[in-house]
């Protein structure tokens, strides 16, 4: 597609926004330019969480002994064995999310732990390790963790689209640019969607179907 001034539009025109008016095009370019970094971060985090989903599906490799070369994580509670790292789930800059395990009275306990840089103010106040999820079934621990991260991704998506609405309202007042906001929202939701959430929806749908069948019988 060629703009009226002769420049190509392909680089920024989303396929779902054909026949944009000049104002919509300007609003889209400006809004997407402003949230580009957030959008890329959303893509990155979505990709990493999809990898965690794959890890959850191939849990056999995590049942092996502790990964060599990794130190034990100091435990926060007294009188308990330290957490041993099973796998690194994802790394975001200096933060790393780990799947860990330890032996307790009733057998093995698993945890997803977020490790922050030791030198950061939050780490200095609370310690560098934050337990995000625990349980005795590693598959369930990962599923619960992913379910929670889905909600966090949704929160991040909502915040990004709020930035878009705010920017468009400030820069293009009194203009109806809902198509632009809706398109950017759709793009963000698409990259933030995990296969896990689809699986979950399928499970819920299957359960509902079984229930319906049960009622019919």
């Amino acid at each position, binding site marked *: 597609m060629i703009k009226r001034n002769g420049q190509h539009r392909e680089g920024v025109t989303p396929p779902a926004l054909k026949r944009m008016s000049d104002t919509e095009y300007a609003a889209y370019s400006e809004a997407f330019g402003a949230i580009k970094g957030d959008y890329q*971060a959303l893509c990155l*985090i979505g990709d990493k969480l999809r990898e965690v989903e794959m890890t959850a599906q191939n849990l056999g490799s995590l049942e092996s002994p502790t990964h060599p070369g990794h130190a034990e994580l100091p435990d926060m509670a007294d009188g308990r064995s330290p957490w041993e790292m099973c796998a690194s789930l994802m790394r*975001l*800059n*200096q*933060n790393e999310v780990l799947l860990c395990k330890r032996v307790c009275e009733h057998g093995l306990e698993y945890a997803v732990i*977020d490790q*922050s*840089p030791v*030198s*950061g*103010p*939050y*780490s*200095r*106040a*609370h310690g560098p390790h934050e337990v*995000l999820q625990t349980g005795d079934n590693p598959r369930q621990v990962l599923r619960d963790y992913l379910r*929670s*991260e889905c*909600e*966090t991704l949704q*929160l*991040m998506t*909502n*915040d990004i689209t*709020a*930035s878009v*609405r*705010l920017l468009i*309202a400030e820069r293009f007042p009194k203009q109806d640019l809902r198509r632009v906001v809706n398109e950017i929202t759709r793009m963000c939701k698409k990259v933030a969607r995990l296969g896990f959430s689809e699986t979950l929806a399928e499970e819920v749908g299957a359960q509902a179907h079984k229930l319906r069948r049960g009622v019919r019988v």
Partner: protein
Amino acid sequence: MNVVPPAPASVLPDSERLAYSVEEAAQLLGVHYFSVYRMIQRGKLRPCRVLRGKLLVPRSELLKLLKTE
């Protein structure tokens, strides 16, 4: 050697600011900003919402979070 954590107010430089964006809060806490969204989602940080639903983290919430228990 025991490291004494700095007083919470000393890590928040601009005392006139009442609230920070999620990215700014992450920088001040020294964590990735996805971790800040996670703290909000899990109820550890209570944000305020400005126009159009944009999240801001009140300075008071950051100070509370940085207080060692």
